[in-house]
């Protein structure tokens, strides 16, 4: 999954989508995921990274991550694969 290239995000979680003009608020873990996505990390790499750094088990994070990625998709913030 790839975040649209010109989406801007600040360190404190404010995100702006110039395509739609919509703005979003994200919490710290969400910001961290967006950064990893911008680095083109895969879903598995993100899970590995998070479980190593954060106090969370794989199952919980995997479930939360999929939910979050679905929301990015819902808000049309990701590149649609052709």
């Amino acid at each position, binding site marked *: 999954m790839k975040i649209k290239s010109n989406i801007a995000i600040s360190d404190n979680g404010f995100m702006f989508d110039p395509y739609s003009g919509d703005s*979003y608020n994200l919490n710290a873990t969400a910001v961290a995921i967006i950064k990893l996505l911008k680095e083109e990390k895969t879903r598995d790499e993100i899970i590995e990274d998070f479980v190593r750094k954060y106090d969370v088990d794989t199952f919980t994070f995997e479930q939360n991550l999929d939910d979050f990625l679905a929301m990015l998709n819902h808000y049309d913030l990701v590149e649609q694969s052709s």
Partner: protein
Amino acid sequence: MEKLKYERPIINKIKAGVPDKYGMSTRVQIKTDIEGIPVKDIVNQYGSPVFVLSEKTIRETYQEAHRAFQSRYPKVQFAWSYKTNYLDAVCQIFHDEGSWAEVVSGFEYDKAIENGVPGNKIIFNGPDKSDADLKKAVENGSFIHIDHFDELYSLMRIVKKIGKKAKVAIRVNMDTGVYPKWDRFGFNYENGEAWNAINRIMLTENMDLVGLHTHIGTYMMTTNAYTVAAGKLADLAVKTAQKYKHHIKYIDMGGGFASKNTLKGAYLPGKDTCPSFDDYAEAITSALINSEIDPEHLPVLFLETGRALIDDAGYLIGSVLANKRLSNARRATIIDIGVNILFTSFWYEHEIYPGQACSQQTEDTTIYGPLCMNIDVIRESIQFPLLQKNDLVVIPRVGAYNMTQWMQFITLRPNVVLIDREQNLHLIRKKETNEIFKNQEIVPKHLKNKKT
């Protein structure tokens, strides 16, 4: 290396809107204990969901209400509205505080007697009193509030037969300027029906018209309606005194005082908008004192308020069963509290608090109950933090009606516990079991042991 604190990732779209001068705090409030007892410990001991009642709050609320009336009017008597919550432990607290019993069925009447309430301290209301109920009430010297002419004539036959005097009042319905008009109970004031009933009673031997009763509605947000109602009952009392030289001993203003819950569709929370006991007391007592009633024969003021006395004392603790996304990406949280045990969620926007420390990040969430029924919605839309499965939630202000109107539907009714004034927990109603329901059923012989 110490790991970083985890919070589930969240993205919320920023919605610009017109600034609102009534804007509410967006801080997520949590409720980790009830009167000093951790909700986690209550659930560990009594399971989830579980109703919790606070004896301290019941007593304090009663005393606040009583003080509001007693400080304005010389003769005040409260009667506990059994239908609001007739758990015996709850009734005993109100009786201990000095409340009589106000019952609306033979079942409730017998409950009051079993709770040790003397017959002459029971007010018997409602449209459903069998001949056996009426006979019992007459023999016990209870106050019978007559609802309709059929009941009046039944009672006339009974007192004639047993030769004992009945102490009666009539329930009066009236236009108090509020909608809906509760004209299905009692005799109407405006069309003269109430006056006709009074005349019929006054001309009957063995019937002592001791009181006048009204109950103008429920969750009354305006106190003015009570002023109108008290004035109309006072007029009937004055007319009765003029015509028959008979003084009405009490005026019963019923109940209907709002609790601090928020009604569906209300713009502001109930705790900010509902009248206080002082407001209701001022409206009622000033109408009676300013009426034409002879001060030498000022009637006792009876009050049967239920909801406003018990709602705040009740909590319902439950757990998160699951989180999911609806088709429009909206968050849905399923908890183990359904509309079957939280009946009041049909008309209130109940507050719901996380039962443990949680993130301040919230999402617009729909909270569903566990029933496999589409109507099982506890909150259609609430800014709610991100809870995980098995996290606890606490719903305050559930003391009124839920423990009487609850349904055994799909699941069994849970434990009810009481926290006493020394912070001890007491189980006051046991969780139901399959055995209880099995015992009530009878399968005809020809349907037994059928092989499928």
